[in-house]
């Protein structure tokens, strides 16, 4: 953790969760995975969420990413209580405010690298809006892919790209709308160490330039060490990280 990292509690959180519980029905009994989680992500903050497998990290990440509804509790994104919004509004919020980077890249195999990067704009905009903004989006996408060393790969499909290249395309996709939050779920989990390192460098570099809040969900201690703040999830509860 960098020595000058401090909790910026004086500023409103860009993403927060209060008393979030989540339970699943397994057979005829309820299994509670999250037991009232409180969580805050400050603007521009780099936060690592670590913890052992099965602690509920992924469940929390999906709830924070507005992909899964908590059984109880609230999730507030940019001042809006996300689960009180309509499905349409919540989808729009997710589209504009959150960029996802997945462990398995999750690119659409039928689209080129450039088209994959443009996908958030295609999803979030009507045909008319997209046509009007297309040049701007394409320029932004091309510039990012240039910056990420993929100039020659714009027209390649995911199957023609290496793992590192795919993850860089996925990163560019997450950043197309310049979202205030990027959620990265084990972004280097599927890459060799050197490739993973290059992807992380890009991610940190972009974060420094764009100042988005970056939430890592990771098992990687070295990555967690590099984050400004770190929280640990144990048995469905989030704790501040404390060195043993």
């Amino acid at each position, binding site marked *: 953790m960098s020595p000058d990292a401090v909790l910026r509690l004086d500023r409103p959180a860009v993403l927060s969760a209060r008393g979030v519980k989540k339970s699943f029905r397994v057979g005829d009994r309820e299994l509670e995975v999250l037991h009232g989680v409180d969580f805050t992500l400050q603007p521009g903050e780099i936060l690592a969420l670590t913890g052992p497998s099965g602690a509920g990290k992924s469940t929390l990440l999906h709830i924070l990413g507005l992909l899964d509804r908590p059984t109880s509790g609230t999730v507030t994104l940019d001042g809006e209580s996300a689960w009180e919004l309509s499905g349409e509004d919540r989808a729009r919020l997710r589209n504009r405010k959150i960029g996802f980077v997945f462990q398995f890249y*999750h690119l659409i195999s039928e689209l080129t690298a450039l088209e994959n990067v443009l996908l958030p704009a295609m999803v979030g905009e009507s045909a008319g809006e997209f046509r009007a903004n297309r040049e701007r989006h394409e320029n932004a996408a091309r510039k990012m892919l240039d910056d990420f060393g993929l100039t020659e790969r714009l027209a390649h499909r995911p199957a023609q790209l290496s793992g590192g290249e795919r993850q860089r395309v996925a990163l560019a996709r997450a950043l197309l709308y310049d979202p205030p939050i990027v959620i990265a779920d084990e972004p280097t989990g599927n890459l060799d160490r050197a490739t993973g390192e290059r992807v992380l460098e890009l991610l940190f570099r972009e974060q420094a330039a764009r100042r988005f809040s970056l939430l890592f969900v990771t098992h990687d201690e070295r990555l967690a060490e590099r984050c400004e703040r770190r929280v640990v999830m144990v048995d469905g509860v989030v704790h501040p990280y404390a060195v043993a």
Partner: protein
Amino acid sequence: MFRSFLSWRYLLHRRTNLIGIVGVLLGVGALILILSIMTGFLEQTRASVRGTLADFFVRPAPLLAAPDPEGLGVPPEPDEVLRIVRSIDGVRAATPQYTWYGMLAPGGADTANATEILSRPLDSQQNAIELVGIDVASEFETTGFDDALRLTPTRGFRVADPDAPFARPPGYRPDGLEKPRIVLGDALYGRLRVQRGDELTFLTVVFDPESKTLVGSNKTFIVAGSFRTKDNEVDARRAYVEREVLADFLRNDARYTDVLVMLADYDQDAPRVRDELRAKLLDAKLIDGQPAEIISWEDMRAVLLGAIRNERVLMAIMLSLILVVACFSIFAILSMMVTEKRRDIGVLTALGATPRGVMQLFLMIAFWDALVGAVIGAILGTWMAIKIDPLEQWLSKTFGVQIFDRTIYYFDEIPSVVEPLWVAVIVLGAFACALVFAAIPAWRAARMDPLEALRYE
């Protein structure tokens, strides 16, 4: 925006989608082609049938009743009926006819050998005909008989002068008493193996007022030539003579059996003219008022036309099954696709797509299937329907198999009428069918849990 773009990409990158497209294409194309041919067949048959018939037939019941010792009760000549018919607004022309049934036998046959002919079932069946006595001038004005005389025969031989069909045929030199002329249907002419100038004897039974019994009678005619209506039934079973000749021969009280009426605009005026005819003829006590006394040409051929209409409906139903099968394949392909693309569904949801958007994405794939299939199918089907005749000839020539036997149908070419409304209905039907079948997998995609999808690798 992603829905149309991504669905198109999915369509192009997955070759199995071609099955759906080709299925829709075949269904739409076949439906348009077959329905166009059936419609053409129906219209051609209507035109052919109508050509020798008139719009209405007036058949005064008293004329057809069993011989009445006290006379007919109506004038034996058609003049009064004709006068009334022609006075009705909307009637273009009218003509009397005298229709009688009997057999035709080669020249020289007499009453004695009628028994012989009758005892041979095959011959009697083949030679049984409808002999129609006409007044040439008014017949030409009323029915399509003059056209039938001019149409190129397939098995017969045209009369020497179509304007005077019962004139003496070239080369006929009366030996003693001049015999009246007969004009045979094209197929009948071929079947009897006669030539212009040959003698033919008409054998029938007539009522003998003296003995008050039915007695055999015959009359010899000279073959003047043939006519061709393209209506198989008529061309095979009918012969024309002059009405006066037939009436004189039969010696019945009545000198006509029908008055044929042609309207200026049948489609518009038919019901009104029928009502007026009935009312005025009843007033004049020329008919009894039975429904069968005034019938239209459609009533006359109701069975034939109804059968073709039924066949058209049946063909449409059967061919629609191709479309249904095509839509089933779209359903199956989309169902597989939804399972395969669950990860994409999760990604799209993470990127901000709503369940409705996901559903529309998969519906769009079916939409493209239907669009590409239906448009190409409609173009191909219409083109084939228009070019069916050269196509059939090419196929027949190439494969050496006669697909359309022109001698059976009496059409010179395969009839085909492309109705734009039908084409539109078929194309829209294909769309509706494809979308209905696609709705189930699309709905399943929309309900898919994005988290499940994202975990899947």
